[in-house]
């Protein structure tokens, strides 16, 4: 079989209010996720090979609460809580416009939606995926996937639920099969580096194991689409 070509494309997805699936229960703010595997690399019309319908995300982790708290309280960096970054270091953040940014571009596995092969159950203190799958910049590279750009669907609401959508495609041109068992959201943040020059770092706000326990198989030449939908239900 010819190795798939390196060919990154992405598309935005705006959810129709009529298509909102309310899995978050009344009174909750949560997320759902949905996984789809298609034939082809970043081909939106590829045949659907596998699909995990919308599932309730189980796991905001502590960094979400810390970052939201910092903005809600409007803490100066000198008083803010140290937040653990995806590289394991902890920093006092400055509460910048960049916080929560998940709009990673093509090939950037530092933030945005991320996928991995870890199997450990999420805990509130998780600060990174157990085993992140790195971007495959020079395919084929065993165990890596090509990260598409993150796209967003604008907020929408039905009579009970409001939500928006975060989407990313991950193409497997590694030459072998990859089973994705964990997914998550990495976001950017900013800390006071020195003087007024900021430093950019990344932290994890959400981590989930793929429903069913066995993960989802993405064969060589196939693309996984991950949709996360933050929701609030009254």
């Amino acid at each position, binding site marked *: 079989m010819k190795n798939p070509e390196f060919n990154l494309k992405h598309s935005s997805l705006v959810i129709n209010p009529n298509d909102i699936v309310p899995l*978050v229960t*009344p*009174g*909750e*703010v*949560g*997320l759902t996720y949905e996984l789809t595997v298609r034939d082809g690399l970043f081909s939106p019309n590829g045949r659907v090979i596998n699909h995990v319908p919308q599932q*309730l*995300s*189980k*796991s*905001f*982790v*502590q960094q*979400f*609460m*810390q970052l*939201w*708290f910092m*903005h*809600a*309280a*409007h803490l100066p960096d000198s008083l803010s*809580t140290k937040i653990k970054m995806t590289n394991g270091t902890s920093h006092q953040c*400055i*509460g*910048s*416009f*960049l*916080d*929560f*940014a*998940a*709009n990673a571009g093509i090939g950037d596995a530092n933030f945005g939606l991320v996928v991995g092969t870890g199997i450990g159950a*999420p*805990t*509130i*203190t*998780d600060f990174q995926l157990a085993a992140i799958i790195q971007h495959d910049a020079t395919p084929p590279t065993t165990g890596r996937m090509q990260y598409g750009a993150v796209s*967003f669907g*604008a*907020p929408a*609401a*039905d*009579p*009970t*639920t*409001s*939500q*928006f959508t*975060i989407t990313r495609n991950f193409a497997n041109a590694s030459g072998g099969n990859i089973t994705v068992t964990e997914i998550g959201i990495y976001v950017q943040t900013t800390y006071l580096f020195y003087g*007024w*020059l*900021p430093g*950019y770092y990344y932290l994890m706000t959400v981590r989930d194991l793929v429903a069913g326990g066995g993960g989802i198989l993405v064969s060589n030449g196939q693309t996984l689409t991950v949709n996360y939908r*933050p*929701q*609030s*239900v*009254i």
Partner: protein
Amino acid sequence: MSALKTTLTIERFGRSGRLLEQRKQLSRSFTIGLLEGLYVAHGQIGYGGGGYIAVNLDGVKTIIDASVRDNVNNAYGSSNLRIGSPGSIGCIEPVGYENNNGGVYHQKQQILNADLGILIGAGSAAVTPTDRRMTQLIGHGQRPPDVAPVMFENYTDSDTDDYVIRGTNWGAQAFIPYTTHQLTSIWIKGWRTGSCGVTTVALYGSDEVAGANHTPTVGTCNVLGSGTIDEATWGTVSPGALQEAVLTTPVDVIAGHRYFIVVSCPTGSGGNQLQWRYNSTAYVYEMPLMTNAYGLQIRDTSNDSGASWTRNNGAFLFQEFGQSAGEFQIGGTEVYNLVISDPTGSFDIRRTFFNACGQTITVNECGIAHVQQHDLGGAAQGIQAQAFMCAHDLTGTITIDDGQLLVVKYTPSITV
């Protein structure tokens, strides 16, 4: 393991500080405002253009974004998602910033303390995900509840001229209420020539987007409410008299925010028109609170049914009536007590409301408003910030007697 849940705790304390009542319930209602705030942050919506149009506490469609940055390569503070606020009267000035070339991006607007953080109200309408305002907000101060509509803002002195209202020719008068209240009716002074048809008197939020000149632009500003005056009500002799338009549904107006009374006679034509009386002298209606250079007065006229407006000196004659649900002395909104203790993480948002009005006040609803900003395009333009509602709950009826203290606390929490 679950999504984020929020506990709403409401406590009522007596004069001696004794706890008289405590209610705990699951908060039902983070609204689309929270999702919009997270959306612009996650998507960095607005950087490089665009932005997202949300609806602020005034009911006005307003751009929000995450692009509060300069073009040098720096990232600076943002007040987006801010909930905490000082108490009492006064304002917060959300973050502007300074870049490493020494340029300062100024904050264009201030937010009144009482508009930010936890809000309470007297309304009991069902909550929906797209609520943008409290049903009947209770403001800061010591005013007792009104038992019947009373006059709030008005300008009725010395009218000098007529402005013709007919067809596409509309008139608009701005006002800024000193007291938060529920507006029930609007009186305007005028007289008719021929058959002017039904007069529509509408209440608009003001377009506070910088550069938009603070007008009641149709399509941008939501019609918050309206009423009508029958043709036969108007006299046919100048200068006419004040006549009342009762709003179909009362509308909350918030102290310190700008609103417009917009008058039209859609079926009017040449010779069949309303003459809305005005005083042509500048600065005749002084608004009690100013939020920008146009604070003193605004009398606008339009010849294209409100799509565009022309600013004029003077003021149209009007009175607005309504009822205050009473006022509390409102403390600051504290955001505190972040606790991460495996498997749970939570923090608290709390505000106190002291009843010093001399009478009992009834509370039925509460909510949260947070800050969202909009980068107006660089250092010269600055940054715009406004309050947007992000949560709304019904509390059940709580009566707070004079001298009693109400404490409202939201506790968002996650469990993994």
